[in-house]
């Protein structure tokens, strides 16, 4: 790997500059902000999944002391402009868009659908006010499954669409599908389901909108992954110019894809602020977050697989149905990414793919860490089943399927080059870290004692940011860099960290490139008036932002050296910067502090020939980009009397190129794996057949804890460098993408004596016992009420 200049920080687990405030309670999250005259909002929400709204009477609520305003859906309609979801507006939807109002006016389409906003002196009073708003509903039959949604007889949620199909069925073929299937040794059919689960950041959605009527300026304190997309969403809805909306973001308590753009509630809060002429704060509570903020992953797949007797997967023909919930979100975009990624790092020669998106009375499908993750789940699941069918070892079958690393690289049948993909190396490394023969002996002994251990592997690649391919580039990442008057190297980026530690990692790169101590770099984020456009998401920042930081710092340094050369009466080529000082190579006595250079530039010490404006606007196209990926392995212990599964050991061999900060990389991987373990063993966003949401508290939506997630052993492969300087690739999503099939593969291996085959992702204890036929399977999507505190069942106990 090509060395970066003065490699002191990059590659080391430098302590985070975020932590002093985080660890001492000095972080500044939206709910920590108090503005003069600030009011609080709460929403009146539908108790029904699907209903006509006959009337809304807010008179009693308006009378309640402390309530300042109540705005119904109709009120808000009159004071706002119809606008599409800002994220969809960016990426473009296809087909007719459903028509609906900002808050519900004529119809509610899910439990929790907001009907009115109450603005009051405190959140307590706002909630009291919500209880006084009288809404008359006329119940409609709820559409609670994709199957029913696709039935032309299901009542349409949106009058203008006429049915509940968000995206009509569309089919694409890559390679010779018919020929491949005709010639294959074997063909097998599968049906695989992935269940509904969701992001659940520890901080929910939150914003403060503050409208200044005199200036016609809307200031928004937001919890968001992009201040600019939030700005656009609010500006459009309010019919304001974007430059009249100023979005600020400080510390954000996680997001995992949830907080992008401006939700309907946030748009309503902004409208409310403009209406009352005072700042209005809304902080969603956990019930709102679980019920309406958004959900993900509910997809089903019919798969036909063509393969050889040697286990090589030759072709796949896949039909995907995605349950996108009630209101449009990015769910409609997911199938095309699934399609593109399905071949994975394997030699797949033919792919047929068709998909349809269904509209149901559930929360909107939102982006959740690796939204396309099901492609890895189905691919890695069916490979295991095929392996068993052929009597092949799961590692062996994958080694036979991995595309060889060639130059030029092998192409995925869907068009992307597998440049620098080290799947083979990661598989082989896993077999070195796990003594398979020893495990098989231990497994056999355990079975004799009635204990069921299992081992599973799965491989993945993620486009982090993805390779530069024949069909196009990786987009552009911008950054403004400036040597401030006091000698601080300031990086202005549109990245909006919410746990990714950018304020540390980008500073590491800049400090190395410029030659200043880490503490002399400041990363500026979270101000739509100050930073360039950006979005933290898609595991792009390591490459795109790392790259623009690296190259931008070089450009800034060149400018600074040109100016310094003039001051120091030397030639720029003879100047070096180390430890915050500029000096003439070979003459340490000549050293001048960078801060002094900066001060003198700010003071105007220039003869006019040299640029004393020590600032650059840089952009970076991602260079060669690249893939991240690897192989994960899990060992589980399944209690077949109770169905309880423990993950005993978990190994991640990964390749993300060069690491900016190993501790940060490992934290991302472990967090993603924890979410994957949670998805399989604990987490489900459950609805009853009549539309009630059952997982509205943490007693029913179960999150993995420190007793559920084992130590995760991580090895980094130093990989094929694709670029002279920027070989950092992202790891944000990989853990969450590959952990579910890893764990499910291990569970199926544990249950081999029972002949279990698993075609689903959610395996709570009751389901484990059903699979091994110890218990009669029960029908229907989750019967019985969800757990409330004090009711028998799950959730922590209290007295």
């Amino acid at each position: 790997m090509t060395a970066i200049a003065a490699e002191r920080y990059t590659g080391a687990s430098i302590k985070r500059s975020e932590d002093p405030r985080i660890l001492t309670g000095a972080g500044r999250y939206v709910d920590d902000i108090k503005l003069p005259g600030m009011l609080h909002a709460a929403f009146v929400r539908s108790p029904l999944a699907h209903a006509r709204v006959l009337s809304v009477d807010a008179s009693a609520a308006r009378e309640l002391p402390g309530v300042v305003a109540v705005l119904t859906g109709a009120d808000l309609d009159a004071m706002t402009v119809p606008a599409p979801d800002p994220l969809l507006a960016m990426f473009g939807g296809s087909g007719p868009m459903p028509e609906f109002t900002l808050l519900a006016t004529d119809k509610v389409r899910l439990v929790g659908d907001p009907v009115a906003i109450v603005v009051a002196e405190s959140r307590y009073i706002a909630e009291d006010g919500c209880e006084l708003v009288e809404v008359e509903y006329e119940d409609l039959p709820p559409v609670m499954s994709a199957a029913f949604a696709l039935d032309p007889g299901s009542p349409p949620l949106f009058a203008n669409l006429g049915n509940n199909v968000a995206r009509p069925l569309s089919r694409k073929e890559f390679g010779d599908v018919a020929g491949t299937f005709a010639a294959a040794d074997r063909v097998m059919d599968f049906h695989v389901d992935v269940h509904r689960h969701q992001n659940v950041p520890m901080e929910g959605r939150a914003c403060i909108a503050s409208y200044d009527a005199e200036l016609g300026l809307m200031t928004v304190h937001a919890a968001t992954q992009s201040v600019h997309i939030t700005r656009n969403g609010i500006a459009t809805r309010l019919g304001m110019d974007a430059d009249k909306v100023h979005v600020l973001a400080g510390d954000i308590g996680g997001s995992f894809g949830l907080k992008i753009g401006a939700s309907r509630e946030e748009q309503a809060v902004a409208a409310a602020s403009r209406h009352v002429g005072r700042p209005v704060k809304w902080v969603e509570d956990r019930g709102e977050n679980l019920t309406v903020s958004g959900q993900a992953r509910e997809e089903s797949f019919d798969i036909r697989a063509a393969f050889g007797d040697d286990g090589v997967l030759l072709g796949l023909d896949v039909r995907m149905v995605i349950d996108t919930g009630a209101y449009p979100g990015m769910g409609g975009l997911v199938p095309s990414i699934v399609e593109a990624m399905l071949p994975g790092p394997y030699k797949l020669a033919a792919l047929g793919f068709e998909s349809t998106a269904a509209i149901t009375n559930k929360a909107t499908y939102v982006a959740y860490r690796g939204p396309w993750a099901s492609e890895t789940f189905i691919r890695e699941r069916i490979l295991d089943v095929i392996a068993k069918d052929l009597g092949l070892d799961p590692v062996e079958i994958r080694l036979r399927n991995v595309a060889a690393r060639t130059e030029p690289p092998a192409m995925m049948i869907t068009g992307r080059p597998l440049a620098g993909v080290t799947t083979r190396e990661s598989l082989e490394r896993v077999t070195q870290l796990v003594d398979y023969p020893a495990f098989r002996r231990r497994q056999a002994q355990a079975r004799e004692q009635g204990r069921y251990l299992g081992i599973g592997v799965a491989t993945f690649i993620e486009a982090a940011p993805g390779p530069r391919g024949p069909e196009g580039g990786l987009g552009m990442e911008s950054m403004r860099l400036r040597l401030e008057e006091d000698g601080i190297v300031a990086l202005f980026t549109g990245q909006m960290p919410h746990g990714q530690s950018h304020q540390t990692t980008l500073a590491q790169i800049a400090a190395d490139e410029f030659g200043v101590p880490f503490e002399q770099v400041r990363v500026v984020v979270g101000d739509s008036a100050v930073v360039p456009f950006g979005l933290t998401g898609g595991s792009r920042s390591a490459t795109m932002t790392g790259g623009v930081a690296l190259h931008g710092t070089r450009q800034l340094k060149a400018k600074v050296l040109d100016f310094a050369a003039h001051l120091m009466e030397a030639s720029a080529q003879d100047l070096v910067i180390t430890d915050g000082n500029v000096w003439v190579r070979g003459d340490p006595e000549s050293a001048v502090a960078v801060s002094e250079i900066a001060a003198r530039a700010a003071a105007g010490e220039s003869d006019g020939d040299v640029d004393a404006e020590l600032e650059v606007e840089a952009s970076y196209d991602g260079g060669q980009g690249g893939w991240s990926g690897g192989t994960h392995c899990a060992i589980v212990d399944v209690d077949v009397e109770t169905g309880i599964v423990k993950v005993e050991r978990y190994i991640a061999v990964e390749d993300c190129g060069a690491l900016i900060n190993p501790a940060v990389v490992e934290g991302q991987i472990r967090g993603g794996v924890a979410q994957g373990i949670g998805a399989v063993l604990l987490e489900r966003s459950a609805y009853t057949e009549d539309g009630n949401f059952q997982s509205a508290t943490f007693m029913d939506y179960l999150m993995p804890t420190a007793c559920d997630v084992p130590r995760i052993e991580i090895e980094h492969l130093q990989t094929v460098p694709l670029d002279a300087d920027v070989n950092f690739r992202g790891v944000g999503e990989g853990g969450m993408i590959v952990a579910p099939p890893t764990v499910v593969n291990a569970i199926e291996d544990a249950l081999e004596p029972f002949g279990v085959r698993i075609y689903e992702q959610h395996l709570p204890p009751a389901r484990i016992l059903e699979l091994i036929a110890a218990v009669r399977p029960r029908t229907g999507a989750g019967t019985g009420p969800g757990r409330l505190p004090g009711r028998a069942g799950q959730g922590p106990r209290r007295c």
Partner: protein
Amino acid sequence: MVDITLRVNGATRTGSPEVRKTLADFLREDLSLTGTHVGCEHGVCGACTVILDGRAVRSCLMLAVQAAGSDVTTIEGLAADGEMSTLQQAMWDSHSFQCGFCTPGFVMQATAFLGDHPDADERQIREALSGNICRCTGYQSIVEGVLLAAERNRERS
């Protein structure tokens, strides 16, 4: 409204909260101590954990009026004279956290736990922290921070 007096982070504080106001909201809004976070308001996630009369408690499950006369320590009260506690420093060194939202709850719970169980092993630490939810880290870095703090405390004594 009930007038209450209590000690918070070593200082006497007073307030007149509504009876129904939780201790968590009182600390955050009335005393402007926003370090204590609210993650669920039904006592499961642990983000609101403070130390009250020597014990870790969930401040979202107490009324502010119930804390009258008590001695409360919040995350803002751990650093002495601007110097982080051993645990805070160890967590910094261990890269324990990412987004930081769960952090105050973990730090207070771990502080209370280590005070009573200075020689706890990893399994015991994980059990003690299993009532705090983190969505970002997968817990290993947090546990390592606590183990490091325990080790440093032992070296010191």
